[in-house]
């Protein structure tokens, strides 16, 4: 299944007249695409874990909703279509004990936090606040998983 970023890339390449590039030269991907794609994947993983472990849903569901909101806001500033949760689902089968799943979420969230830091530092001024806020949110998710 294609991730959100791959879907957007395909959509952008399919458009015509973007920066007057030739058909063999797609426009460069928006640097925030990986962050949006990752947000979509994280949302799916948290939602699946919340479904599988209802006693953790009170913690996991708000985080899933936050990642969804991040993906939508990133899509807005990239002027692309909002991601669909189904289109972001590339997590595959997620199994294991609740401890295993929480640890997997923690590892994925930590990687996402580091990626968001780098994206914030590289972002132009008009995007820095949003991306920085997403980085900070991911740090709070790690705190919430403790």
């Amino acid at each position, binding site marked *: 299944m294609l991730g959100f970023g791959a879907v957007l890339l395909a959509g952008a390449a399919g458009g015509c007249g973007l920066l007057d590039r030739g058909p063999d030269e797609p426009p460069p991907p928006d640097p925030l695409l990986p962050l949006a794609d990752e947000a979509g994947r994280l949302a799916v993983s948290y939602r699946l874990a919340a479904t599988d472990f209802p006693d953790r849903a009170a913690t996991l569901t708000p985080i899933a909703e936050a990642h969804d909101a*991040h993906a939508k806001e990133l899509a807005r500033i990239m002027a692309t279509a909002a991601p669909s949760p189904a289109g972001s689902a590339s997590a595959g089968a997620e199994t294991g004990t609740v401890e295993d799943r929480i640890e997997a979420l923690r590892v994925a969230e930590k990687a996402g936090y580091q990626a968001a830091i780098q994206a*914030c530092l590289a972002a132009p001024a008009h995007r*820095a606040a949003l991306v*920085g806020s997403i980085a*900070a949110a991911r740090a*709070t998710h790690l*705190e*919430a998983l403790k």
Partner: protein
Amino acid sequence: MTGELPAALAAEYAAIFAYGPIGVRLTGAEQDAARAAEAAHRSLRDALVLTLNGTGLPPAAPAYRLPEPVVDRAAALRVAIAVEEKAGAVWRAALTATVGAQRRQALDALTGCAVRATRWRRFAKVDPITVTFPGKIPS
């Protein structure tokens, strides 16, 4: 640089002031968290003073208005959450006015405020303990 970093310095002065009355209403792990938070804000203040050295630092005020009187533990936790959210908002605004090392400083500060606010919400049993966009002022 515009006024974002001086505004952050003013917010740090206010946060340091607030943790005085907050700390005396808390005990145990909560009081330890208040001490750690105050120390973190002092470090942020000191780093900002160095960053802004020679650019006309805003002076610390003798006192700052708190969101509400800190009369008991519950009020202390509410004020602690508010202090971190307000400081986080100022640091978030600083992201747009900075690059390089100064932006990293602002991002680390925003993140620290957001994580501390999360911890205070956990102590206060606020549900959920996280917010979607830390530092963003609700419209």
